[in-house]
């Protein structure tokens, strides 16, 4: 009897020390559960999109700061916000570059990189980025419009005119955007621009602007008026 008790006690101790039985492969049964299978890795395209979208967020932040700065009069405040704008466009450019590393053919990323670089004052790199976007997708009118604005800032008026006409053929609303940028530029042209070229460009722009206003229905928004 004593022996039986001893065996029973010993077995009880042994069983207690060995702990509960785990299923093969480890992990607890209750509570904490088994470890989950590893999450699938994101594809390069997905990572590119994630970086691209982060870049877009930084770009949008930069726009918000630009909007605030435009309404200010205090020079110190303006300078402070201009710094913020530059910082955000810098971050945006980094993200777009990261996107391109993962998906070199993502034309939207090239175009947006071009836009960020232009706002950072790097016109040469900006143009190269737009060119790459359009090599990948010649119909990407956003890049045509953005590139047109870059040409404008550089005083390359013939190229700006070509971009505008291309947009009139392909995407009238984008053409209107470029014309708005042209009209804004003509109110305060860049310093050092050839004056004779500027005068001819201004004449052309005024004629085209009048024509644009007379053909508003081509903007698509007036389709129901036909």
């Amino acid at each position, binding site marked *: 009897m004593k022996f039986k008790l001893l065996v029973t006690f010993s077995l009880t101790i042994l069983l207690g020390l060995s702990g509960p039985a785990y299923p093969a492969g480890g992990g607890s049964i209750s509570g904490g559960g088994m470890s989950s299978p590893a999450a699938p890795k994101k594809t390069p395209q997905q990572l590119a999109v994630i970086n691209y979208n982060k870049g877009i967020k930084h770009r949008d932040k930069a726009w918000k700061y630009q909007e605030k700065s435009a309404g200010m009069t205090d020079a110190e405040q303006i300078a402070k916000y201009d710094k913020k704008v530059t910082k955000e466009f810098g971050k945006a450019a980094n993200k777009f570059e990261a996107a391109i590393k993962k998906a070199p053919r993502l034309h939207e990323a090239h175009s947006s990189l071009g836009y960020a670089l232009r706002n950072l004052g790097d016109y040469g790199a900006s143009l190269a980025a737009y060119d790459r976007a359009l090599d990948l997708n010649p119909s990407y009118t956003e890049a045509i419009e953005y590139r047109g604005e870059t040409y404008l800032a550089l005083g390359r008026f013939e190229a700006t005119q070509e971009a505008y006409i291309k947009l009139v053929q392909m995407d009238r609303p984008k053409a209107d955007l470029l014309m708005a940028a042209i009209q804004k530029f003509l109110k305060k042209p860049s310093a050092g621009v050839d004056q004779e070229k500027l005068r001819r460009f201004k004449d052309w722009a005024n004629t*085209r602007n009048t*024509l644009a206003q*007379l053909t508003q229905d081509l903007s*698509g928004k007036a389709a129901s008026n*036909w």
Partner: protein
Amino acid sequence: MLLASLLSGSQTIASEPTLPLGFPKPHQQQSVNEPLVEPLIELGRHLFYDARLSTNDTTSCATCHIQALAFTDGKPTSIGATGALTEHNAMSLVNLAYRDSFGWRDKHDARQQLDRPLFAEDPIEMGMNPKAIPESILNEPYYQSAFKQIFSDTITWPNIKQALVAFELSLVSGNSEYDDWVFQDKPPSEAAIAGMALFHSDRLNCSQCHGGIGFNNEFFIEETEPRTDFQDNGSEPTIPFRTATLRNIEVTAPYMHDGRFETLEQVIGFYAAGPNPENNLKGFELTALETQQLLLFLNSLTDQTFLTNPAFGNPWQRAKPN
């Protein structure tokens, strides 16, 4: 079969012709989902030029809608198959895909509008019987094959009208000098540009009624002169008429819904006199130079490519169609 199911039941028909540079997608296309296909347009073209679609095999659609005249016929009003005169000047069949509705006084859809030239009895235009298709059409091998290919149905009036409309909607004109300027930055003469400025000026205000891509808007304008040759039940002396397109206006004389004016100078003179002050047609002064400039602008709306495009021409080799 798939094509037939796609095409049947459409109230209006989308078309996918090759659009002129810079032209937006046609308005008509926006209301349907199914695209047209080339065989349907081609069938429509054959029917359009086929005089067997008339009571005496003398008159096709193309009799009154001649391509070289931007699909008008150069007459004040047209002559039907039996010699009766139509009520109105043959309207240009240009850029119909950008219209909301059709007809000089009507607001029909494209297929409804065809009932008048095909089936009207007073006056007879083509004099067809809506209850019967001519045997000559039913027995034509090209039609037997084409209708079978395109429609799951046999040759029926709804299918004939659908094909005709498909061809009509494919008639898009947008390669004039003016279009070269707008879409390719090739400006016309300085005089034509000055004419355009006059056209859009507050003084002349032509674009109030003749605006938009077709230079016609979707306006119906009251005629102020009492009509003596046609009365609308004799009760109203004035009848609203649709404004005509000014595209290819250089070749679509005579002008107005009744073809009363032989020249554009006469038309300009009519409006200069202020024919309808209540509807903002108060008249204007115009010098001789300005009249010439305006005419040059109007002439810059001529699209020679459209007027001579073989794709819109008569496909029949034999003499029996028109």
